[in-house]
């Protein structure tokens, strides 16, 4: 996709964001001391983002028009791996939401193994190495943080 087309999407995204901030800021009370109240900055930010988004959209439309730009592919390396991306997002979400229940060590081991497996190219899937790393590292991190740095980590069902 050409940059201008991308920018139109970016502009719509930030326009929605700006309008959302602006609309939500009308709910803020105007109870004020001297000067401006708590609603001032939210409104200003909402208006600011919305106006700039409109500028971005119109600029991109204008540039797209005068240049009659041809479709040109992104020169990024390698093909997009949608499955890898979706799988690692799902894995991350489950990691975070099960962390408290099952504890840091168990969930981290599951996450590390899964994520390494998902991200690794097919011929680099060294299961034994992944297993050693994904069990050893969380255990080491847990004891290092809890015993050496005096920080807490969720112990979960092991605690």
């Amino acid at each position, binding site marked *: 996709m*050409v*940059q201008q087309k*991308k*920018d139109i999407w*970016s502009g719509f*995204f*930030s326009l929605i964001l*700006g309008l959302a*901030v602006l609309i939500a*800021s009308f709910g*803020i*009370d105007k*109870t004020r*001391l*001297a*000067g401006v*109240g*708590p609603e*001032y*900055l*939210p409104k200003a*930010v909402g208006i*600011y*983002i919305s106006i*700039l988004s409109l500028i*971005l959209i119109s600029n991109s439309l204008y*540039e797209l028009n005068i240049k*009659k*730009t041809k479709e040109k592919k992104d*020169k990024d*390396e*390698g*093909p997009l*791996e*949608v499955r*890898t991306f979706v799988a*690692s*997002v799902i894995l*991350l*979400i489950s990691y*975070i939401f099960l*962390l*408290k229940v099952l504890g*840091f060590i168990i969930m981290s081991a599951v*996450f*590390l193994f899964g*994520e*390494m497996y*998902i*991200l*690794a*190219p097919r011929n*680099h899937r060294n299961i034994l190495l992944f297993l050693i*790393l994904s069990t050893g590292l969380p255990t080491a991190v847990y004891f290092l*943080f809890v015993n050496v*740095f005096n*920080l*807490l*980590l*969720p112990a979960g069902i092991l605690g």
Partner: protein
Amino acid sequence: MLLTGILAVLNIKTLLLIFIGVSIGIIFGAIPGMTATMAVALCLPITFGLQPINGISLLLGLYIGGISGGLITAILLKIPGTPASIATTFDGHPMAAKGEAGKALGIGIVYSFLGGLISILILIFVSPPLARIALKFSSYDYFSITVFALTMIASLSQGSLVKGLIAGGIGVGFSLVGVAPLDGYPRFTFGVHVLDGGFGLLPLLIGLYAVGEILKNSERKGKAITKDEIADYRIRGFGFSPKEFAQQTINWIRSSLIGTGIGILPGIGGSTSNIVAYITAKNQSRHPEKFGTGIMDGIVASESANNASVGGALVPLLTLGIPGDTVTAMLLGGLMIHGIRPGPLLFTTNGYIVYSIFAALIVANVAMLILEFFGMRGFVRLLAIPRHILFSIIMMLCVVGAYAANNRMFDVICLLVFGLAGYLLMKLKFPLPPVVLGFILGPIAELNLRRGLQLSDGSYLPFIQKPISIIFLSVALVSLIVSIRNNFKETKMLSEQNGGEGSVTN
């Protein structure tokens, strides 16, 4: 005070922490896709349990190591490990290709050290008098300085001007969640009490930078760097003669001054200064045609400048409490956790801490020289760790960092949300630094605006009557107008060049 400060750093534990910090920083700097910002964000929670001086020393070590480490991959692989060493590849890699990789590394390491040294000296001599002046600043002045910083960051960040400005606004938007300053009115909390305190800086930073970056990397199967790709090298001495050293004196000092100056300006740092210094060195040179073929001048300019940005970036942080880039933003967070508030008062109330910071910087700079010189083989070997293993481990450390900050799951959920937000913003090509700095500077600007208006009974006049305030507001306005003009010119030029046929990407 001076002595207490220096002595606080000179003990085994602190020195060891600085060395550890520099080593980890070099690793993060050397590996493409990992940055000094990430290194500091991930190690920030570790500093909570340490004494303030030790924690800060560790973070400063990470900063210096992280900026310098990029030269290793820039020279040996032609991939800049961080944006701060882009210009190092221009002459560093050709020199390595000629079989002089050892010499290129030697030059890079020595001039990283020398560039850093000049900037630290400037920091030491400039910041105390600057802090004395800053003590007299009023709310009006602070508001204007913050606005100035915000416009600089948004307009100087890479990519489109409008998107930079929007990104800054989005950052301010994130900071609105939670209770408002002065009157404590809850905004955008939607009755959820855990939101009253607002978003933490740490989950935001780790989320945007580390999680977002890793998610973006997970879109593509990365191939590991193999041994054959890394240029062979041997370091004998520093690789260059005293005569060559003498010839570079002007280049070294000029590049370091450029680096320090750019570091002081908010919003831009090592990633810009190395390129500016390189171009300046080329323009001033008697043999500009040799640049790019593997000459010493290019590496000297780039590496002196990027390390010199570190000292520069610390000037506004220490004297005004205003961070100029993402790493200093995190240092600000790290200092505040220990109850230390950077700003002009720090020099009078906690003066020894300022001197400890100076001492730690010098030690970290020396540690960088020693570690890169003797540990080069070790760092190079780490480059071969496959990305799928590295990124998985970092993702786990992100979760550890977010949780350990406050021991609450809310921060980990924020981490996830900001990770996805960071990914989305990167996909839509919004620059991230303005988001982070908008998040930090927004509340400072609002607090000072409202405090100022309270003092003046709602009158805006003092903002344009106070000399310092009006100067910064005018500079902000002028810089914005200049950026808009340049931006406009660029688009016009590009559209003329491309006529009706070509396309402009990126």
